[in-house]
Structure formats: structure tokens, C-alpha cells
């Protein structure tokens, strides 16, 4: 489990850097609540983005973004509702809410391949 978690943490760091480079600002990372965890919550202009990061070390079991299953999609939606209910304040301002997936493929050497799917679901 250790190795797996390490891959995940690495991926989240890569993803966060990627989002910031794309002009987004990070609101929260690894936000936890009783029903689960949101990898990254960010602001992209006037859109609030709930972001699922999926990292893999090889495509032997499919590409990383294919690992985002229906169950994960459903959980992220529930988590978003939860976040909005508990964390939002009156000063927050956004027009849209979006769900993105960032797939990170760790290569054996060199930089990881990052694929940012905007509005994935």
C-alpha cells in the first residue's frame, strides 16, 4: 500500500503544479470529510473546479483516466455537494462548477505525461 500511496502523492503534486501552470489557483488539496477526499479543489477564472487526479505507472491496465470509474465519478459529485454545504463562505464567488480529471502517467525516466480533461463529467 505504501508504494501505491506514494505514486498517488507524486501524481497529485504533479497535477497541482500543472493546474497552477495552466493559470488556475488552488483552493484546497486533499480535502477530507467523512465520505471521502477531494484531490484538488481549484479556481479557474470564475469556475470552481473539483479535480480528481489519477496516477499510474504504466498503461498495462489501461490509461490513468480510464481508471476513473462510475463509482469514483459518483463519489466526487457527492463530495462536491458536501464541500459546498460545509466549506463555502459568503465571500466566495464563482459562476460555474466543473469536474476535471487530471491523468498522470509516470514515466520510467523524464517528466510524467499529464492529461488534463476539463469538464470530464
Amino acid at each position, binding site marked *: 500500500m505504501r508504494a501505491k500511496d506514494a505514486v498517488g502523492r507524486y501524481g497529485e503534486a504533479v497535477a497541482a503544479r500543472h493546474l497552477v501552470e495552466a493559470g488556475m489557483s488552488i483552493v484546497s488539496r486533499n480535502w477530507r470529510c467523512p465520505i471521502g477526499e477531494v484531490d484538488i479543489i481549484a479556481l479557474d477564472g470564475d469556475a470552481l473546479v473539483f479535480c480528481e487526479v489519477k496516477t499510474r505507472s504504466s498503461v498495462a491496465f489501461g490509461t490513468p*483516466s*480510464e481508471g*476513473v470509474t462510475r463509482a469514483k465519478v459518483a463519489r466526487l459529485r457527492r463530495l462536491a455537494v458536501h464541500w459546498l454545504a460545509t466549506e463555502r463562505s459568503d465571500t466566495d464567488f464563482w459562476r460555474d462548477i466543473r469536474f476535471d*480529471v487530471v491523468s498522470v502517467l509516470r514515466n520510467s525516466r523524464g517528466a510524467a505525461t499529464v*492529461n488534463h480533461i476539463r*469538464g*470530464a*463529467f
Partner: protein
Amino acid sequence: MTIARTQAVALTGLRGQLVEIQADLAGGLPGLHFTGLPDVSVVEARDRIRAAVVNSGIPWPDRKITLALLPADVRKVGSRFDLALAMAVLAAAGVVGGEPVAGAVWLAELGLDAKLRPVRGVLPAVIAARQAGVSRVVVAEANGPEAALVTGVDIRTASDLTEILGWLGGSGPPLRRAAPGDRVDPPDPLDLADVTGQVIAKRGLELSAAGGHHLYLLGAPGAGKTMLAERLPGLLPPLEEAAALEVTAVHSVAGALAGAAGMIKRPPMQAPHHTASVAALVGGGSGLARPGAISLAHHGVLLLDEAPEFSAAAIEALRQPLESGEVVIHRSLGAVRYPARFQLVIAANPCPCGRRGRDCTCAPQARRRYIQRLSGPLLDRVDVRVYMDPLSRAELTGPRGQDEDSATVAARVRDARAVAAQRWSEYGWQLNASVTASVLWATGWRLPRSVLAVAEAHAERGELSARGLDRVLRMSWTIADLAGRTSPNADDVAEALFFRSGRNLT
């Protein structure tokens, strides 16, 4: 925008309809989505085409793929769309050029190993493609000979996806052009000369073959009913072009064409077992129905051996197709029409124990019930009825080899059929059995009173229904045709009456 198009054919019965398949690659979570009334077997293609593409060494596009099968309101059933779907995805992903993919119809199932596999109903599908103006169809190798029976279409065959990719990409040889299948039927091993004696029954068989009349053989076990009935197709002339195409198409849809089959030229014969269900007999199956035994016997012979053992529902289901020459099967997904213009041969024992006369051990009621299972309306449509006695000792032990062979009888049948077809050509009928009552009694065809006298006497006594009288007339024409007379005489009518009345059945 990455959209690619390709084409396939959906089949409803024997009617094919061109289906356009569009593939769209878009951002979003990777996945494959279908629209356009695909049934489960089409949606299952998702896993097949993906495995096939990956196993051909092509990376599967990591995009959201939407496949539309248009027109969207036509049901698409079966694995026949696999290849077209795969080609649409590959073209949308830019692996192959869009033009050659869009210009052809792709008809094959894909294995996980990327091999092209044959599908049912290729012949009617290619006919539909030609009607829609398609000039090129790609099929699996095993379907090539069948597809190439349709002229005017460039039929290409491939054994796997790699061959197609090599051809389209220019790195491999062009796909092979398929040659039409040349089906050489082995000589019919069944010959009429094998049947000893049974002169009356053989005469009935010949009449039946010459005029297309339905036949009823009643007789004790061992009298040779089945032997005789099995020899009927051997007496019929080979199928003409149009009929052969229809028969081959039905067999293709049923998946009953063997291997490298060409056109079926010999009249088919179907002898369903008496436990056959209604669906097996007239066609059926969930969703869209498949052809049953009566459609596989189209332009051929349907033999119901041990007919009283068939379920009443199965027997009754035959009545409507017997009249109309086709069967319409309604299912939740729509009505399917299959041709079913067959010649019916009914064979039956006189009673459950099969021993007629003094030896019979059946109760009278049981005997009556047994034979009454063949409904009146069905038997009413059967013109030629023969009772076959078991062979006498003299016939069994006497010299053999004196019986006419099939070729001799078939020649007479062919000539008689030619005369009949010529005579009714202005009405478009081939067989005496097809002539309508209105024409039988019309001026010019109506027989003189002197000739009809015997039959009319029967009718007046109530032994012959109006429909029965018409049938006697039709058979009289057949008898005259076989004898080379231009019009039936009183003897011909009397013979027809003998076979029709069932007097000999006792």
C-alpha cells in the same frame, strides 16, 4: 472536430437497410458510447473492437468516443457491425484515411484476436448495399463467395484487421477480390428406382411434382412413405435464377449456408421432427425473428413425417403461409416477413399402432382422434392424397430394378412444368397449383360440361366442396400436361378426382 463515417447494413428479415456509422472523438473521460437503437449484441462490440484494435498493435484512442448508428430509429442487432464500428473509430483517430473507409460497406464480426469472422445474411445485405449505390463491400474470407454472388459490387475479403490497415495505409497488398461461390451439389443419392412398386403413390408423387400440388401420404409403417417423400426434390427442376437467389438469401439469414457456399440451385427439403415448436417451424426467436423450417423450404419441399404427432398449434400455424406463400412474424422489435412458398408433403400412419385392419390394436376412438389431429382446413389444401399399402410378398420377392428412375420422371415433370408455365405466362404463374379459381372458370379455360360431368356429380352429392372442385380442376390440368394433351379430358378429371377425393384412403 474528429468525426469519421463508415457504412454497414442492418437486416430485418430479408430486407437490408444501409446504416451509416459515425464516430466522434471528443474530450472527456475515455469511454465508448453508443446511440441509435443498438441492441445488447451491438453494445458488446465495445469490448471486441477494442481488443481487436489493441491486438493489431494500434493504441486505443484515450478519448471519449461516441458511435452513432444512423438512421437512429432502426433496430441494429448482431455482431455484424463490429468491423464497421472499428473502422469508424480508427478513421476518427486518424489511423486510416477517412475517404476509403467511408466509401465502403464493412460487414464482419471481429474476434478479440482481430480476425474477421463471417456473419449471417451477407447475401441480402450486399444486395441492399448495391441497391443503395455502394460500390465496395469488405467481408470476412468465409463470406466472400456468398457476397460475390451479387454482381456489380467490388467484394474484398480480409482475414484480419492488420490486412485492412496495411491495404489502407499503403504498406500492404490490396485486399483480395472475392470470386462468386460455385456450389456443385453432389448428385442426389436418393433415386426413385430404389422404391419398389407403389405405382399409385409414385403417380401421385409425379403429379405433385409436375403441378406443385401438396401431397398426403397415408399408410402403414414400412410402406415407403418417407422414402417416397424424400425423393420429391429429386423430381423437381433446378431453381431458376431469381428463385435460387431468394432461397440462398433465406439460408444465409438463417446461417444455414455451409462454408464456401454458392447459389443454392437444388430445391431445398426440410423435414422437421414432429416435436418441432411453432417457432422452429414458421420462424421465431426473440427480438427480430429468424426464418423457420417453412422458409428454409421456400421453393422446395416441406415434409411433415408422422404428421399427426405434430402439435396442433404447429399444424395450424402452417395454414396462413400455405395460402399466402409467405409468413409474417411479429415480435416486439417489429414484424419480419419471410417467403414460404413450399410444397407440403404430409406423411402419416393410419393409427397410433400403425397396423391397419384386423391387426390394429387401437381403440376406435384413439384411431379417430389420431387422424383428426390433421385439421380439415389443412387437409383441404392438399390435392393429392394416396393410401399406401405395405408391399405384397410378390412385390417384395419379385424381380427388382424394374422401377423408373428419378431422371426419367424428372424429365416428364420438367416438360409438363414448361407447358404449364407457358400456358399461364400471361398471368405470371409457373405452376398449375397457383392458378386462381376465377381463371379456372373463365371463358377460354373453362372445361366443357362433358369433361366436368363426373366432378360436378360429386359436387352435387356434397362429396366435393367448391374449393375441392377447383383443386380437382387444377390437378386435371397437370395430368393433361403430363400426358401431353392441350386440355384435360374426362379421364384426366376422373383421375384427379380419384387422388383428390381420398377415396383410396378408406
